[in-house]
């Protein structure tokens, strides 16, 4: 494709993203709302254990993974793909190539999420953490990802400016990363299962490479695209960013095997060493972000800039929690406690969802060529999310440490250990409610926006139908 002669306008590029992005984000918003609602349903069990005693579909052990998977597979990944696609188009300075593919991909993906969620709730989950969806959904999700990747690669390959942007490194790597880990894990765990505890090793490998590495690649890749734009100045230190990229994937990929797991010592030892080394990319990412943003005279006022700044900071914090979990002594205390879920939720919602939402609010106006229906919601959601996250993550993390210290003391009966953590659920459930409220605002914006746009289409279509025929059209 040769775009040199007739320069394509920015709005044309943005407009080419419209339908695919609406398809990706629309479903994502729905899944975020349902996912958060289900996680509240799950946590009700801790307030009243016999709440769903007669309802298999709503038992904690099914709702909890269903909610988590909805947040990860339903919201995080498709929303990330949307932001990614737009960044690719913008960086390539061309409209999306093969725009039909991401639309089809989005629909297949969302179908996969429906199938997977039903599989879990009906009691047919595979039983592997973060891979509960099973065969059917696996095929759908993987196909959808391939279709999406074809279009993304084509857009990337046809880029006008051959020079690579820093974000290209992170995002292209993410495109290659996901199919590899997702296919390998499903192959060895579901399609052609391996024997014994090797299953757990593969599951940990997969979960870490998806929830830590993949989310970091996309989230930080997007942040490195948006931060300089918001700050109105170049990204600090190109080479340090590439250094962060290399160290992130080289060290990050070896984390994830918990200390004390029933596997030979070298596996957790390797993860511990790798986790300690994660400090290096973290320092680099923190330095780049701070130097890029600090002193810029753009105010964020609860807008997209705030989202991305908060999200990047949350990434550093949640990664530090991850490193702490791998420390030989600390891991003994917080292993098997609520500290782990706190870290995961922080990574998913505090870091990733916030960065992606920031990107979404930034790009959506441009893509739709109009203001958001409820621009104030952006700021309200920002505060709701921050408050919700502080309550959710803070209370669970503290509860986890208390729980862990009590578990370490065998004189404290187990019942007393768990009842000590119950108080934390008041806070964490409140936090989840705030998050749910925030996600409603997000959903409201995108749904009203979609509805208005469709209505507009209908209207113009209707007009076109009723318009008197032109002479040229009569001929043909």
């Amino acid at each position, binding site marked *: 494709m040769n775009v040199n002669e007739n320069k394509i306008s920015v709005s044309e590029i943005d407009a080419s993203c419209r339908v695919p992005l609406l398809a990706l984000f629309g479903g994502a918003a729905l899944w975020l709302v349902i996912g958060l609602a289900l996680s509240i349903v799950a946590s009700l*069990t*801790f307030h009243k*254990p016999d709440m769903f*005693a*007669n*309802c*298999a579909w709503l*038992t*904690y*052990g*099914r709702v909890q*993974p269903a909610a988590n998977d909805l947040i990860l597979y339903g919201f995080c990944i498709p929303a990330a793909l949307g932001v990614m696609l737009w960044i690719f188009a913008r960086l390539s300075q061309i409209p999306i190539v093969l725009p039909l593919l991401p639309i089809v991909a989005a629909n297949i993906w969302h179908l996969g999420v429906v199938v997977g969620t039903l599989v879990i709730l009906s009691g047919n*989950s*595979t*039983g*592997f953490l973060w891979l509960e969806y099973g065969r059917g959904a696996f095929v759908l999700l993987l196909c959808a990802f391939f279709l999406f990747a074809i279009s993304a690669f084509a857009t990337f390959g046809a880029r006008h400016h051959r*020079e*690579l942007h820093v974000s290209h490194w992170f995002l*292209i790597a993410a495109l*290659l*990363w996901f199919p590899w880990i997702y296919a*390998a894990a499903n192959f*060895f*765990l579901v399609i052609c*299962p*391996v*024997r*014994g*505890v*090797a*299953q*757990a*090793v*593969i599951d940990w*490998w997969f979960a870490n490479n998806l929830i830590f590495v993949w989310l970091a690649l996309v989230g930080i890749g997007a942040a490195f695209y948006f931060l300089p734009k918001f700050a109105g100045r170049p990204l600090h230190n190109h080479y340090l960013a590439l250094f962060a*990229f*290399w160290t992130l*994937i*080289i060290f990050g*990929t*070896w984390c994830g095997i*918990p200390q*004390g797991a*029933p*596997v*030979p010592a070298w*596996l957790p030892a*390797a993860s511990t060493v790798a986790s300690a080394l994660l400090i290096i990319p973290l320092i680099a990412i923190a330095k780049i972000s701070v130097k890029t943003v600090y002193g810029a005279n753009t105010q964020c006022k609860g807008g997209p800039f705030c989202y991305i700044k908060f999200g990047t900071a949350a990434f550093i914090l949640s990664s530090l929690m991850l490193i702490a979990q791998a420390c030989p002594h600390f891991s003994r205390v917080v*292993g*098997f*406690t609520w500290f*782990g*879920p706190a870290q995961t939720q922080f990574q998913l919602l505090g870091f990733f969802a916030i960065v992606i939402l920031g990107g979404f609010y930034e790009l959506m106006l441009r893509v739709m060529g109009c203001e958001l229906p409820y621009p104030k919601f952006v700021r309200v959601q920002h505060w709701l999310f921050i408050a919700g996250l502080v309550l959710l993550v803070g209370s669970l993390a503290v509860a986890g440490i208390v729980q862990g210290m009590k*578990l*370490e*003391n*065998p004189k404290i009966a*187990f*019942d007393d250990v*768990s009842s000590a953590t119950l108080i934390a659920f008041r806070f964490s459930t409140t936090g989840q409610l705030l998050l749910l409220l925030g996600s409603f605002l997000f959903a409201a914006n995108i749904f009203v926006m979609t509805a208005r746009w469709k209505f507009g289409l209908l209207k113009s279509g209707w007009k076109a139908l009723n318009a008197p025929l032109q002479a040229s059209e009569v001929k043909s």
Partner: protein
Amino acid sequence: MKSSFPIFLAVFVALGASFGGFVVGGISQLGTEKQTTVLNSTDTYPLQRTGDATLGLQVYRAQGCAACHTTQVRQDGMTCDVVLMGAGKNLRAVQKVLGEIAPADKDLATNQLPKTIFSGVTKEVAGDNSDKLTGAGAKAEIHINATGADISRGWGIRQSVAEDFLWDYPVQLGSLRAGPDLANVGARYTMNLQLQHLYAPQSVDKNSAMPPFKYLFVVRKKINGELSPDALSLPKGIVPDDSEVIPTDDAKNLAAYLVSLRADVPLYDAPFTPTVSAPAEKK
């Protein structure tokens, strides 16, 4: 830089390395694991779970029990005890040695044996002292104990190792202890207690936070006011006096699986000295 080749290379190198290490390495080391023998015995371990317990694992998976329970015991360290089994022919000499190494036991009489002379010491200390005792003609043994908070809690005797999960698919290690560890729950609860606990956890443990799994049971009117043989024998007040609770097949299988959870024999990679010779459960 203009070429995207380095990105491909980066992913291939980085992810390829951990794929090779954890996935390929893990499969070749753990995926080929075979049955072993119980330490100092010829019994094979682990035995295949019984049919109903194997089905029960699927019920465990389907209800997502692993969301709240782990089935893995952690171990922090190991200690040794020196146990004097017999004084041999020369009690005097043994007492003399005891006077040097353990003054509290220097007046030991033969009828007090076997007696633990040292407990909770390192292998080196235990080895030195037991050598001294055997040198004096006594018969001394070194007992190995696994230690750790999980073990002190009574959740197991030793840490969990790969062999314990050899036959399981899917392996349900769990990652959170909202409830207690279940690696050895078979040694703690009987089948009937398991069923009662599943139906009404709070009737077994008042403060339990576990949700009841009533949907795995059928409540029906007693026939002629008699309890049918299949019904649970529950304490009064859980169901009306004229009703009885019948476990479904799922409940029975799940309970069978839970009862089959026992990882308490010594293995080469998780050694300890059984206090009462631990019988490998044979059916």
